[in-house]
């Protein structure tokens, strides 16, 4: 379970909810444009300790079978994961 991007992104005046309730986890835009640097995993150094996953404020790191994956649509490039990793398995590289 996780908020995810939807097809329908814009709402006309007549479609906006009349009360304050709406579907949970409804995303219409990514955050990747905020980033000037991006985390890149060096899987040779990674031991799957999950500390980067635990401390990512945006929850964009997932680890399956010791393989670290980053959802670059929503990573803001803060660099916390890179600092927290004791094995230097995450390097921040400039976005182009």
């Amino acid at each position, binding site marked *: 379970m996780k908020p995810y991007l939807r097809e329908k*992104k814009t709402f006309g005046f007549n479609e906006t909810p009349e009360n304050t309730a709406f579907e*949970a986890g*409804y995303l219409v835009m990514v955050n990747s444009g905020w980033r000037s640097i991006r985390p890149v995993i060096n899987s040779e150094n990674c031991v799957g300790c999950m500390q980067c996953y635990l401390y990512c*404020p945006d*929850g964009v790191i997932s680890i399956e079978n010791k393989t670290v994956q980053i959802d670059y649509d929503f990573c*803001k490039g803060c660099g916390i994961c890179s600092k927290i990793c004791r094995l230097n398995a995450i390097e921040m590289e400039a976005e182009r």
Partner: protein
Amino acid sequence: MSITARDLCRDEFFYGHKACAGCGGSLAVRNALKVLGRNAFAVLPAGCMSAVGFNFPQLCFANNAIISTFAGTASMLTGVEAGLRAKGITDFTAVGFAGDGGTADIGIQAFSGAIDRGDNILYICYDNEAYMNTGIQKSGLTPFGAKTTTTPSGKNIHGNIRPKKNMFEIAAAHDIAYAATATIGYMEDFLTKVQKASEINGTKYIHVIAPCPTGWGVPVSDTVEIAREIVNCGLWYLAEYENGEFTLNRNPKQFTDVSEYLKKQGRFRHLTDDDINLIINSRDEKWNKIRKDWKFGKD
């Protein structure tokens, strides 16, 4: 039992939000919800976490979540809990995430009332030590010496002239069922306390330090580090209150350098040696009391 990264569910309940890069508050909300799971009903008052989480149609909570009035976190939690109970729903947690201003200043009356009634709610204060969402004004939890837009630093006055309110002990003084302090820098400790609180019947309060890189003047990559240092240098402590007793969870043999902690942050950079000595003295006074009066427990 202590919660580690491996114990957390893979679900993400706070995702795609618009918090600044490296926001400590968003990390606290994200992980607390991962402990509480799908049946958490979250209440968020005015403040950064509601502002970054609900921007129709970008709605970043996967679980049930609602914005309350600024002052009304606890009273809305009371209503949410009673409403769910009236509907016959039993397996849920009514959890609030309020800022320091929303908790120690404007929301304190509603919170005090909820503790007085013993309502079965979990109130989490993410403390970034100022009113961040409106542009860094001083709150009752802004520490002595911090520069904010309402406590500027100049020739005569060096930032905030008042000490930080002791919200943890204010909650405890109500004889609350459970209260704890935490920091996002020691995540396992925080999450273990969230888990423990969720299993206790009655009112629960967790006060978690959640640095704001924007308001504190630290790099966005350093939020977690600075949230560890505040504990290591003794300006924050990890403790619990339960059954009428205070327990200190971590008793550092030696504190790290306070001035090093302060000088890393833009909000404290103006402090003089005299100011810093005042801060060190009040830290030592507090720790003398803690070590005299509180039990020592496991980390």
